[in-house]
């Protein structure tokens, strides 16, 4: 035996990690964690989570840690490109930036002078909507949106119209204090690290975690209880839970009276124009019946004793009943009994009943009490903060259905009935939320040649008067947002733009400008037809039906070959960015926060940050706010210059931290020319702490409301009343019944009347209701794997080693009945088309559901992957099976209220492929040709070799 000392050989254990560490913000997905980037000799050595950062507290997910491979990707575009061949063929010539910007200015300048709406400007996974939306407004086009219309607008809009905020960027579970956490649907995405951190805390505290999800993967795998629900039936399950709580009188009536519109009186006047609207006084204030005064009074007064039950006669003789009575009568119906919904939901009645009982038990028998006095909006002091420790989270899984808006509303009503909104242990708002409820302002119009829009292009209609429709009730926006087809389309409807532009409906456009939106592949429904529309020409003129396409992306995505002008973007490590409170905040429930990116590396290619390009283009176009009277650029320093100096309204800019001449003002304050330096010195973020007495009950907490006004989040320190009953929905419904001057087209009346119920309802998803149940018996859904969720580049050399091709997962019992075994090729057929997929039977999936990982399949040649890459040979997209319109109809395959794309409504059948049918699963698409100038594909990567110390 040798001596132990010899065994422990000398090793270089204290090699400095780097010679430079710089902070910035991750952009490998939409979570926006703080990172520390270690550089050695100017090269990337290591990226780690920033322990001081409020989003991720030092942790980092697998995407963030793969940032080095994003930077090294050979799929990076290298120079501006001008199309020289036919669209889609990938024939480009490299041009200089001056020529590229000159061309764009010429094209866009002509549009702006004549008819600004002929520019459709849509951004994909962009995180700079505070800039892009404002830019569209300055340009004067209403045709602007980001990707929310096919992501989670149902969730966002339902939350804003119901409780003044939603999940993710709007609020979060009180992970420290919650005792029962229920997560609905696909949620391994947004807030990725905060939720993982939160789940870790729940586990450590022994709190219960229930996952309601058709598929048992990811988070669902560690749930204490997995409820494998049938897709698109979450709303029905929630309404059944509501019914159980009402039947058993397990609801928080005090909460309902204090902070919701439960006591507000609703006019009962069937057939009349005021039926279902709130009874209001001369000042427009809603009314309630005060039992103390024995009279109908202003419902917003403090200390009234409002009745929740009972019809009242209003001073003008009309009859009205409280919201709560309407709600209770509706949901105590046997139609919502667990037995009545069990089969539809695929959840046993006993499970539903027990879930309701457990929610009630935890909410009402295990209250969380914090010894923290606080003062409510009316000045009344409370000695303790008492909360209901049940919390919920949901995202796209319940959102991307045609019944998504009402489903999300139902979930918020459930939260309200349990008193579990912004209370200790429940869901909590993140400043600047909650916002006044229902929200505002409406989307701006009209469009004037050579002029700006008079407000943001996206907004929140309160009724038909706010729609963007013409005298015939037809859409004014290219994507039909804010029309009768999608009245509350708060995020626009990007998924309809190409179809509408191709058809020239409601009018032809001239230029489609897009950023980071893979619309010819995984970001579109109906890929083959979308490609055909992008390349279609007018038979008469020989011109493209969509005359010009300008596209910006950092990578050779599937969309690049369909552009006429390509403006190559940088990576996230090469530019400034701004994660603004005006956009999608990174705050947590204890305080507002925002952050920036700073360039860590200098591009080795002739590329420019898209935001800089937009600001440059704006100045060249002479846009107000970007060019001075004499035509000179107002922000010659590009985006960082704009971030520090631009004011949206006096004192409010892109960044809320380090404002004022001395850099010490938070929220509102004069621009600080050294603001960016201050952010960098603080780790590239700013975070403020809400005073302790203001941290809960924010909608009705005086200290919070005052704080929010001081910070510029709210205009007035008035309580925010949550909306069990949504009056704006009723206004649309009344119009559809023929009341008022603004009338929907007749073809939409019935649909609006049924969908716009002011109290949440459930209806069967549209596609399933239109196709034959026997022909297409199965639901087909997708999810992104955690290692790639919201990542723009799954070609990443490390990420793709973890997953480079997807399979079709199906219930084992179903596989057995169809004689399908693991690895078999199957046809997946929808009403629209069919694709091939490799089958993988599994246990943890709803018995009526098949699913796969989304966006793994790539088109041959895209992303500079080898033509025989698994992504292009074995990977597949379900997108090819989904249509942007409902089967046989001109109407969108979308939620009728918000226009959210109903991806998850897809119905299919599966059958085994014959041996001689087997082909590439990615589909029959011509291979793409990477543009000149792209890097070669290395055969081997030896990342880090240069850093090793002998």
């Amino acid at each position: 035996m040798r001596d132990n000392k010899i065994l422990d050989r000398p090793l270089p254990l204290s090699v400095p990690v780097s010679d430079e560490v710089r902070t910035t913000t991750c952009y490998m997905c939409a979570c926006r964690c703080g990172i520390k980037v270690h550089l050695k000799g100017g090269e990337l050595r290591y990226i780690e989570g920033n322990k001081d950062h409020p989003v991720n507290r030092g942790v980092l997910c697998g995407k963030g840690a793969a940032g080095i491979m994003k930077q090294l990707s050979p799929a990076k575009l290298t120079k501006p490109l001008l199309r020289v061949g036919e669209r889609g063929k990938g024939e480009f010539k490299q041009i200089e930036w001056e020529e590229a910007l000159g061309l764009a200015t010429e094209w866009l300048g002509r549009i702006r002078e004549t008819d600004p709406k002929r520019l459709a400007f849509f951004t994909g996974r962009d995180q700079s909507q505070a800039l892009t939306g404002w830019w569209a407004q300055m340009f004067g086009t209403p045709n602007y949106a980001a990707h929310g219309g096919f992501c989670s607008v149902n969730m966002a809009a339902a939350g804003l119209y119901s409780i003044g905020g939603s999940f993710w960027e709007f609020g979060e579970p009180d992970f420290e204090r919650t005792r029962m956490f229920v997560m609905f649907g696909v949620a391994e995405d947004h807030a990725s690290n905060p939720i993982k951190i939160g789940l870790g805390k729940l586990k450590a505290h022994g709190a219960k975690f229930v996952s309601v999800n058709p598929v048992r993967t990811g988070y669902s795998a560690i749930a204490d209880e997995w409820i494998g629900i049938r897709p698109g039936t979450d709303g029905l399950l929630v309404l059944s839970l509501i019914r159980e709580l009402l039947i058993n009188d397990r609801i928080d009536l005090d909460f309902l009276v204090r902070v919701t519109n439960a006591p507000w009186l609703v006019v009962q006047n069937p057939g009349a124009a005021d039926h279902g609207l709130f009874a209001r006084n001369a000042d427009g204030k809603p009314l309630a019946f005060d039992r103390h005064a024995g009279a109908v009074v202003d419902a917003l007064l403090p200390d009234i004793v409002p009745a929740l039950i009972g019809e009242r006669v209003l001073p003008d003789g009309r009859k009205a009943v409280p919201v709560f009575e309407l709600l209770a009568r509706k949901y105590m119906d046997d139609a919502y009994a667990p037995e009545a919904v069990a089969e539809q939901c695929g959840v046993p009645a006993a499970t539903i009943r027990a879930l309701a009982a457990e929610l009630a038990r935890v909410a009402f028998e295990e209250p969380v009490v914090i010894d923290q006095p606080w003062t409510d909006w009316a000045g009344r002091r409370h000695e303790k903060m008492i909360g209901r420790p049940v919390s919920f989270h949901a995202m796209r899984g319940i959102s991307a259905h045609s019944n998504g808006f009402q489903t999300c509303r139902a979930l918020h009503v459930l939260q309200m009935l349990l008193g579990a909104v912004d209370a200790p242990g429940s869901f909590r708002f993140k400043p600047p939320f909650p916002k006044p409820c229902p929200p505002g302002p409406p989307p701006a119009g009209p469009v004037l040649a050579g002029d700006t829009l008079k407000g943001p292009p996206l907004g929140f209609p309160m009724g038909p008067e706010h729609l963007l429709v013409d005298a015939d009730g037809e859409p004014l926006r290219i994507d039909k947002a804010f029309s009768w087809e999608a009245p509350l389309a708060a995020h626009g409807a990007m998924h309809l733009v190409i179809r509408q532009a191709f058809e020239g409906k409601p009018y032809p456009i001239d230029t489609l400008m897009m950023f980071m939106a893979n619309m010819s592949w995984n970001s579109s429904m109906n890929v083959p037809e979308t490609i055909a529309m992008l390349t279609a020409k007018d038979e008469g003129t020989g011109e493209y039906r969509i005359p010009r396409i300008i596209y910006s992306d950092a990578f050779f995505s599937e969309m690049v070959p369909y552009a006429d002008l390509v403006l190559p973007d940088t990576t996230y490590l090469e530019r400034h960015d701004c994660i603004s409170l005006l956009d999608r905040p990174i705050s947590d429930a204890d305080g507002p926060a925002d952050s920036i990116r700073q360039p860590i590396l200098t591009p080795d290619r002739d590329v420019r940050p898209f935001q800089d390009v937009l600001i440059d283009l704006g100045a060249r176009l002479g846009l107000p706010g970007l060019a001075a009277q004499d035509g000179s650029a107002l922000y010659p320093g590009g985006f960082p210059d704009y971030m520090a100096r631009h004011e949206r309204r006096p004192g409010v800019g892109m960044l809320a931290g380090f404002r004022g001449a001395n850099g010490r003002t938070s929220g509102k304050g004069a621009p600080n020319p050294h603001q960016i330096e201050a952010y960098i010195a603080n780790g590239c973020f700013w975070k403020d702490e809400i005073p302790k007495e203001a941290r809960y009950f924010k909608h009705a907490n005086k200290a919070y409301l005052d704080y929010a006004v001081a910070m510029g989040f709210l205009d007035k320190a008035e309580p925010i009343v949550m909306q069990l009953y949504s009056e704006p929905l009723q206004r649309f419904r009344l119009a559809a019944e023929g009341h008022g001057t603004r009338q929907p087209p007749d073809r939409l009346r019935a649909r609006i009347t049924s969908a716009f119920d002011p109290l949440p309802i459930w209806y069967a998803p549209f596609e399933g209701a239109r196709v034959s149940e026997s022909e297409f018996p199965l639901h087909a859904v997708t999810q992104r794997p955690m290692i790639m969720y919201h990542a723009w580049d799954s070609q990443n050399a490390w990420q793709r080693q973890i997953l480079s091709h997807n399979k079709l997962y199906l219930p084992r019992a179903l596989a057995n009945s169809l004689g399908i075994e693991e690895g078999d090729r199957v046809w997946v057929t929808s009403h629209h088309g069919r694709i091939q997929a490799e089958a993988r039977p599994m246990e943890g999936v709803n018995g009526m559901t098949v699913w796969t990982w989304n966006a793994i399949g790539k088109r041959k040649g895209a992303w500079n992957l080898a033509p025989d890459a698994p992504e292009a040979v074995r990977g597949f997209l379900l997108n090819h099976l989904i249509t942007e319109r409902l089967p046989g109809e001109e109407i969108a395959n979308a939620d009728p209220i918000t226009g959210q794309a109903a991806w998850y409504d897809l119905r299919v059948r599966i059958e085994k492929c014959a041996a001689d049918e087997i082909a590439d699963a990615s589909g029959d698409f011509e291979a793409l040709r990477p543009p000149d100038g792209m890097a070669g594909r290395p055969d081997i990567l030896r990342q880090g070799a240069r850093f090793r110390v002998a």
Partner: protein
Amino acid sequence: MTDLPKGESAKKLGLVIDLDTCVGCHACAVACKEWNSGGIAGPLPDHDPYGAAPHGVWFNRVHSFEAGEGTEGRTVHFPRSCLHCETPACVTVCPTGASYKRASDGIVLVDEDKCIGCKLCSWACPYGAREFDDDAGVMKKCTLCVDRIYNETIPEAERIPACVSTCPAGARHFGDLGDASSKVSQLVAARGGFDLMPEMGYQPTNKYLPPRRKTSAPSCSAAPEPAPASIESRFLKWVDRVLSR
């Protein structure tokens, strides 16, 4: 053949991995790859990185699989890396002394200068934890981030393996499993931490914490359905409730 240190090492540095909390996000695997690529055992080469069969060296891999059927079924996310065994066959089988176990802390390492790439160690390891770098022709493996945990240029609180530092769910823990009073030892004791394949007799240092018992049904029973007549009486009760705004 290579000898092990004399006697049991007093200090047994290792990992405790919580299968009740791991969501299978691969953060640990990628952070490991990233750290170690530029570290003492780097690079961790990737072959055909943009081609038909991308494959590379990873010291830590996460396997997701299902176990059990029907209501007994569960999905398991299982991170796998070197377990730094007390009596590792990968070391004793090494013909050159390249594989070795440190006496001071129990970490199993490979001295690449001595490795002849014979792969006997990877055959001997029942856990599949060894990773062959066929570019350099040497065997590599998890170093427990030995160049982080002792690195005096890193703030002391951050001297933990990259996989532990990055884990978003807090499912990974690092410490001295030879010290019964350490946090990791207490965690193992409290949660019934177990050895992977103890029957092999290699006495792994790393421990896994089992998933908590699932409740297939909620932990409380529902109230019986009230009689239909009681619905109107429920309304009457609500009518009588005095609630102040």
